[in-house]
């Protein structure tokens, strides 16, 4: 008894000190605690106790108004995940998504962090993804890009934008830092102009205006034009992030490399970029998160990304009441993705701090 009292005394006194110091303080604590408990209980009630589970119970859901209708997810999840992709071919879309996921996870493993392995991994991943999604090979029926949708489309756009945008952003950052003033200034102007345009207008331009300007052979599918436009937009932001990371490197680093007789590309590749990326890691992760979430904008030019597919799934008369459930489901998918990205960023920061000054 006495032991327990001694042990719990500090904790108790802490609680008292922080939450029940004055009568006003105590009142606020009690009120807020009650409110929080009520919110959590209502949420729990809605999401679990009153919820309706199982396949195809839309009539019951409609009758039963005060609970979540998870039956919507159980019934319509394929539309949310795969959009307009032909029903009997959806296993391909799922497999393609899993391939991308595996590639993403593998590229987080340090074994693959070499200039040869990482690009190879992504090229193999992309080719597999494309063959699975597009078909036309190995007896798979062709599914054109217009019919892609849902999670796999979102993942595809995100991965393609990052992979195209990342090398582009390094190039932009290097040009922006060029010793020749006219190159540096032109690049600065270009970055400033593109950054000052809304992403939406860039997507529109690339999707709709560009076909009038480009020769026929260069037009390509609307999807790829949008990806290129988005990648340029991404690269402008990311270039400034990388440039910031470069500016944080002490001048002595490049001087030391010069004094050792290392040429420009060696200095950039071995001394400047590794340190710039380490300095710029938090804003880079941030940029990835924003990019992933903004893929939803492609809806507006007629693509069924995961959000649009969700709306389509809840868009029929049968399920029109299930918008909240749909947004919760889609939101959860976004959360899983973005949260793992930020956890990975935190892991990288911890790992890299080993070699920091």
């Amino acid at each position, binding site marked *: 008894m006495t032991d327990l009292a001694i042990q719990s005394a500090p904790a108790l006194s802490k609680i008292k000190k922080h939450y029940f110091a004055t009568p006003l303080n105590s009142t606020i604590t009690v009120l807020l605690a009650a409110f929080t408990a009520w919110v959590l209980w209502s949420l729990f009630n809605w999401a679990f106790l009153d919820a309706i589970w199982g396949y195809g119970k839309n009539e019951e859901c409609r009758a039963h108004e005060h609970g979540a209708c998870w039956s919507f997810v159980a019934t319509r999840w394929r539309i949310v995940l795969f959009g307009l992709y032909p029903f009997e071919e959806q296993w391909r879309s799922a497999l393609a998504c899993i391939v991308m996921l595996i590639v993403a996870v593998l590229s987080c493993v340090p074994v693959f962090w070499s200039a040869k392995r990482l690009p190879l991994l992504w090229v193999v991943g992309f080719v597999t993804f494309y063959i699975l999604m597009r078909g036309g090979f190995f007896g798979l029926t062709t599914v054109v890009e217009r019919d892609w949708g849902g999670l796999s489309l979102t993942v595809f756009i995100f991965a393609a934008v990052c992979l195209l945008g990342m090398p582009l952003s390094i190039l932009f950052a290097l040009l922006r830092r060029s010793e020749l003033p006219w190159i540096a200034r032109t690049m600065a102007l270009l970055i400033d102009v593109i950054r000052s345009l809304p992403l939406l207008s860039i997507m529109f331009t690339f999707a709709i205006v560009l076909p009038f300007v480009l020769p026929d052979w260069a037009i390509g599918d609307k999807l790829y034009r949008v990806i290129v436009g988005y990648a340029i937009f991404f690269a402008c932001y990311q270039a400034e992030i990388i440039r910031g990371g470069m500016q944080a490197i002490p001048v002595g*680093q490049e001087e030391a490399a010069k004094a050792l*007789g290392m040429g420009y590309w060696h200095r950039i590749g071995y001394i400047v970029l590794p340190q710039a990326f380490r300095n710029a890691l938090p804003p880079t992760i941030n940029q990835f998160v924003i990019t992933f979430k903004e893929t939803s904008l492609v809806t507006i030019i007629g693509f069924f990304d995961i959000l649009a597919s969700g709306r389509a799934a809840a868009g029929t008369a049968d399920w029109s009441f299930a918008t909240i459930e749909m947004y919760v489901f889609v939101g959860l998918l976004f959360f899983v993705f973005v949260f793992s990205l930020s956890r990975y960023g935190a892991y990288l920061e911890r790992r890299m701090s080993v070699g920091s000054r």
Partner: protein
Amino acid sequence: MSDQAISIRSMNKYYGGFHALKDIDLDVAHGEKVVICGPSGSGKSTLIRCINRLEEHQAGTIAVNGIPLDDNVDNIDEIRREAGMVFQNFNLFPHMTILENCTLAPRLVRKQTREEAEAIAMSYLERVKIPEQAHKYPGELSGGQQQRVAIARALCMAPEIMLFDEPTSALDPEMISEVLDVMVGLAEEGMTMVCVTHEMGFARQVADRVIFMADGEIIEQAPPGEFFDNPSSERTKTFLGQVLGH
């Protein structure tokens, strides 16, 4: 091989309108050890940074081992391979281990294999007495240890000339001697050295010639005995009075 390791003729350097180096003439013979001293802002660091083109001079000529330092990038690279440099702030690469710091340039520039480069690096790390730190990162080492690594890193490129830019100025007093010991050892082996330093004891012990600079000009140069005991210019006397006074 030319007869002078470094040969500078009426070299001028400007920062915008500021005349940083004025008509510098300087020859350094093979195997010679030259110490440059002078008050801060006198241009001594700028001078040795011009020798490997970390700073660009605007007039006059510089030749290292007979190779003219001009706008020819190949010449610049060759000179940088001939002349190793040690900096005040060490400038080790923080994202690489000590061994990687020492092997990077030999592998990239001298095209050595990893095994070759590592064997050479370890031999130099032994010479500067820190082979056991080879797999640590610079941030885990003391300042004196880092500077010794920086010397080993420069030596791994097998340079003929070593440039030292105030190598002990950023060190805590108790670490200065461990770095100077390494430099003395290097001098005894016949390395051509140009050192910007305030360590007058080192200058007296090692230098063949001491150069005094002020306001971008070489004011006086003499063998250390003469320089310290019987300086000819008033400014040198004042400076020595300040440096050696206490």
